[in-house]
């Protein structure tokens, strides 16, 4: 609890600092930089873009990973602005019903901001492939969709399970530029192997913030780095104290 409150305090401090104009320099993410290129390729080849915010919902047993879905939706906001700008059809597939209104609202807002709200019904498609026994129905639904629409760009950001590799390989077969990111440890190697660009772990949580160039969000990224530095310092301190013969682990009942 203490650590969570400390984290909130650090994030809030750096967000406020950024709002006062003190924004740290951000390193670029190759996957994020490739998104305009991939949507551009879709425009040139007259083929659509596929996006998925992952196969994790907001409720139930998988809700613990919902932060990844939020990260995916944040990137969707950026991608849908690009598709609105380049007039490219956008297909978004979701695995949970509760994501449909959220995805639709995100897309509508992006198209509105690009002055193309009238194109939402004709150029964007939110498709629901529900999860049943496992994620197989979602996976097979997306594989079939890829055969039909042959996307020029496949962007997958969020929490994924086994379907990650199946979709990414099918995207490769269709010749799509593929950008994928997840914080699911067991799926990252598949994305690295099968996709052109991979956002690894925490990169998905900052991609939307960097894409938006919102100073407040950029401030929170600085807070993340500071928090990681504190964790690293605590690790080194704990390691040193433990090796000096003081049983610090017993204090934390580890």
């Amino acid at each position: 609890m203490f650590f969570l409150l400390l984290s909130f305090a650090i994030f809030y401090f750096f967000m406020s600092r950024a709002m006062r104009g003190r924004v740290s320099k951000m390193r670029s993410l190759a996957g994020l930089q490739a998104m305009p290129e991939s949507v551009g390729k879709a425009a040139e080849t007259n083929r659509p873009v596929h996006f998925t915010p992952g196969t994790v919902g907001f409720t139930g047993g998988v809700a613990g990973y919902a932060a990844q879905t939020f990260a995916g939706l944040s990137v969707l906001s950026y991608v849908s602005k690009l598709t609105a700008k380049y007039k490219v059809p956008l297909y978004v597939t979701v695995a949970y019903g509760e994501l449909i209104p959220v995805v639709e609202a995100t897309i509508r807002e992006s198209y509105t901001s690009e002055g193309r709200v009238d194109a939402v019904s004709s150029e964007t498609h939110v498709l629901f492939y529900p999860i049943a026994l496992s994620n197989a129905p979602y996976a097979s639904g997306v594989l079939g969709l890829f055969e039909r629409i042959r996307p020029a760009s496949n962007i997958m950001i969020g929490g994924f399970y086994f379907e990650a590799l199946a979709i990414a390989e099918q995207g490769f077969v269709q010749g799509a530029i593929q950008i994928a990111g997840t914080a699911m440890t067991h799926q990252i190697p598949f994305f690295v192997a099968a996709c052109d660009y991979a956002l690894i772990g925490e990169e998905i949580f900052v991609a939307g913030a960097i894409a938006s160039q919102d100073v407040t969000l950029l401030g929170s990224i600085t807070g993340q780095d500071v928090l990681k530095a504190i964790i690293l310092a605590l690790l080194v301190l704990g390691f040193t104290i433990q090796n000096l013969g003081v049983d610090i682990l017993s204090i934390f009942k580890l």
Partner: protein
Amino acid sequence: MIAGYFVRAPEIFLEDIVRDLSLLASTLAGYATILGILTLSLVHVDHISKRREGQWIYSVILLALTMVMIGVGLIGIIGTHPYFTWFYAFPLTALDSTTYSILAFYIASAAFRAFRIRSGEALVLGITGIFVMLMNAPIGAAIWPGFPVIGKWIMDVPNASAFRGFIIGSSVGAIAIGLRVLIGRERGVLGRS
């Protein structure tokens, strides 16, 4: 909800509040599933009405099977009807396992591309991959007893350290995005700009 995770306070009925909120979220998600089925049906009715080539026949099958599953589910509204159990245990499980098993071929094709040695990093990946695979395969120890030892070291030391760093980074990122959503600063989500 956050307080309920960390604080035990029976005197203010915190557990009850958390349980009720969780139930509310699950109920809302249930209604959202109905919305999802409606959306799915509308999309596929559109395919059928416009006779979309290469699509409409699959839409017919999908809608028919959806209706069948809902129908047999409603027959056994009190308890599970044997028809529902049959549909669940035989066609659905078999189809599910089939889709899952396709993964073996996808892994092979992805590994073929990933293990092509075109750079120094790819060489390191290839060598470590060989050691870890031969650690897991019984033939590894038969070829050379060092394979399991080195493979285990790779998993326990470099892999475990990278894994922990990754977990720390991801957890911090998840907390950050959680805060941004809670205070309404994550504007891309929920259709705000």
